[in-house]
């Protein structure tokens, strides 16, 4: 792999950039792989990368019905944080955070991970109580978290309206300084390039049409490009997990919902951090291009349409205007939808399935992007060792039978 | 005897409603009609005993067409659901009405509940009233679609209301829960604002 750097850029500039190699190949599927990963989003590609890097398993295919990184990886609002409430989630996301912090160097691909700080606003006494509870849990888990009062919030994010008469008075906020944003496409591309370099086949425009299962053990996948044998098959297909799992006769506690986001026209910087408010379904940051990147709430109904209803955005912007009055005169330039797979306890499922050698990584709701490196890392371990890592042991399907849920509605909620 | 103990929850908005109203034939007028008698009836419309008993008291059979109301004398009966109606009568009429209904319906599987305090009423009337409603309500408000004789449960602004089309002036009557009343008044006055500037 030719290393990226200012020097390689300069060198290639001399030859008018004619000699840059492909960042990844477009191989035809081999008849058999040790591991076939379904879904070339951030999670699938990261899993392949760590399978190769950490476990030396390189005979791996990542198959994708569309284009790599084209699902939720390329549709989210790029927020990264690890300030989750429960030990299981907090430690899992913190592991991801640590991987984020070196990801550009690890992948030799600038994913523009920008730790500009994430504020989670509190608008009522219940919010305040839960925020402090979460800050303390984070601190004891070694996750950076602070509680700011309204004035400190104003100091950190000067454009925010902390007036007491506001419809949504700001009573304070939690701050995770190490939280921030990243360039979502670059994450997928960086992992794809890294995995490809270690011999992983990333096969795009290859749609899964069935799973080959022989008395309770998965043997491969049937695809639009023909059958592919596999010793192990790992699902990493987010919103479509139920559809693929159904091919194996597996039912999951997952519902897929439309989740909308939008960007404004690019403007000179007005907000330098990430602000999230569960209560009013607003979360916003400003991209390096100057666009306000905002997310809305999840549409209530099951949907695979990658489009939501305008009223969700209208209501969200009403709330946003109360928090950031100056947003009123900018414009929505583009809006879009993703399909988020949600679990009843707002926590993911990462582990084994009732079918031998078939693995599932799903149910991320709105946490998927921020989890990418950690999910890939743990999932790779789970696949390689055929048992979950301590960090994802709690996120099994069984918890819905035993009742040991990891209820993150408080901390995850609609927030991203 | 007149009840001197009662207060409308939006009594303090009276002046604002007067000031916010726009006079003239292109105007629009907002006012409160407080303290109407309101009784909620649940029952089985298949049961002839139920239907006739109600009719005996209020003078008219409960409407079975969704989104409609019928008026007879002092009483107006609104369809709220397949087994739910609301009778609206004159101020102070509720006690008598409830007693008569409970007696008439005794022994049937019904519910007769005095809900006179559960909603107050706002009248929006005048040439611009329809436009104000179009700004406020997601239903088809055009003259051919929503006509006198119709009433719907829906939202005006973000407030749940029972919305009655009274006449072609047009006049809309909104039955709104007291906790939402001030919000609804503020919303409607805001929506009426531009007609001061025509």
């Amino acid at each position, binding site marked *: 792999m030719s290393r990226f750097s200012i020097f390689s850029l300069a060198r290639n500039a001399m030859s008018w950039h004619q000699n840059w190699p492909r960042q990844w190949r477009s191989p035809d599927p081999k008849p058999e792989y040790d591991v076939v990963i379904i879904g070339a989003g951030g999670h699938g590609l990261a899993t392949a990368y760590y399978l190769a890097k950490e476990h030396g398993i390189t005979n791996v295919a990542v198959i994708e019905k569309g284009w790599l990184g084209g699902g939720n990886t390329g549709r989210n609002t790029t927020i990264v944080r690890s300030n989750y409430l429960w030990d299981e989630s907090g430690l899992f996301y913190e592991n991801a955070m640590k991987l984020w912090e070196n990801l550009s160097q690890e992948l030799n691909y600038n994913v523009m991970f920008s730790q500009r700080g994430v504020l989670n606003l509190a608008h009522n006494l219940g919010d305040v109580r839960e925020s402090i509870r979460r800050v303390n849990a984070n601190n004891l888990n070694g996750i950076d978290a602070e509680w700011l009062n309204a004035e400190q919030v104003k100091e950190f994010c000067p454009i925010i309206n902390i007036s007491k008469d506001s419809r949504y008075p700001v009573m304070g906020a939690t701050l995770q300084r190490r939280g921030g944003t990243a360039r979502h496409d670059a994450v997928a591309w960086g992992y794809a390039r890294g995995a490809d370099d270690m011999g992983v086949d990333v096969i795009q425009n290859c749609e899964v049409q069935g799973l080959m299962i022989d008395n309770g053990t998965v043997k491969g996948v049937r695809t639009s490009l023909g059958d592919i044998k596999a010793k192990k098959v790992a699902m990493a297909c987010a919103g479509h997990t139920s559809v693929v799992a*159904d091919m194996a006769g597996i039912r999951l506690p997952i519902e897929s919902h439309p989740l909308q986001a939008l960007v404004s026209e690019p403007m000179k910087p007005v907000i330098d951090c990430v602000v999230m408010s569960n209560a009013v379904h607003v979360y916003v940051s400003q991209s390096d291009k100057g666009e306000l990147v905002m997310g809305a709430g999840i549409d209530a109904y099951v949907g695979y349409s990658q489009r939501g209803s305008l*009223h969700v955005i209208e209501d969200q912007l009403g709330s946003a205007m109360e928090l950031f009055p100056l947003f009123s005169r900018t414009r929505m330039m583009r809006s879009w939808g993703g399909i988020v797979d949600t679990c009843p306890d707002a926590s993911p499922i990462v582990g084994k399935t009732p079918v031998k050698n078939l693995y599932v990584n799903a149910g991320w709701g709105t946490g998927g992007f921020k989890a990418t490196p950690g999910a890939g890392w743990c999932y790779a371990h789970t696949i390689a060792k055929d048992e979950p890592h301590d960090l994802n042991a709690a996120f099994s399907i069984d918890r819905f039978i035993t009742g040991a849920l990891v209820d993150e509605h408080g901390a995850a909620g609609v927030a991203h | 005897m007149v009840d001197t103990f009662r207060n409308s929850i939006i009594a303090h908005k009276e002046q604002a409603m007067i000031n916010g109203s726009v006079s003239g034939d292109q105007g629009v007028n907002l006012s409160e009609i407080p303290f109407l008698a309101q009784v909620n009836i649940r029952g089985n419309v298949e049961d002839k005993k139920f239907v006739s008993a109600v009719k005996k008291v209020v003078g008219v059979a409960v409407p079975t067409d969704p989104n409609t109301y019928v008026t007879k004398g002092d009483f107006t009966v609104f369809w709220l659901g397949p087994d739910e109606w609301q009778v609206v009568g004159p101020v102070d009429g509720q006690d008598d009405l409830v007693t008569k209904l409970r007696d008439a319906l005794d022994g049937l599987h019904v519910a007769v509940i005095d809900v006179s305090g559960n909603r107050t009423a706002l009248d929006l009337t005048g040439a611009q009233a329809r436009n104000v409603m179009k700004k406020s309500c997601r239903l088809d408000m055009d003259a051919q679609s929503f006509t006198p004789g119709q009433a719907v449960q829906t939202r005006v602004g973000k407030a*749940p209301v029972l919305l009655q089309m009274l006449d072609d002036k047009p006049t809309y009557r909104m039955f709104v829960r007291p906790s939402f009343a001030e919000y609804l008044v503020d919303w409607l006055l805001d929506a009426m604002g531009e007609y001061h500037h025509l």
Partner: protein
Amino acid sequence: MLYIKCPWCGERDETEYHYGGEAHIVRPENPDELTDAEWAEYVFMRTNTKGVHRERWVHSDGCRRWFNVARNTVTNEIVSVYKTGEKPDLPEAVTTKPAPAKKAAAKKAPVKKKEGA
């Protein structure tokens, strides 16, 4: 903004309703006789259909009735609206009742072909 026809009140905007999740999941008669897994199946497991999905809505701002909607979750086309206890009139391919995993998988094969994965 979906436009949903309440079986009683007629067509209203989505905002007047609340979504009630997958339809036709019947509460077990005797929960005590179920294994934990069977109970979890009732409480948590969902079909999450890509394609025509039978789901429940309640007309919260209107008549407060719960009813069923068959909606294509890809196009949002509403195929059928029917009252609780009624049967929808749907093309055979999509009327297979979601339920115990394996059977469902086998049965729903035609749907899958149609909808793709």
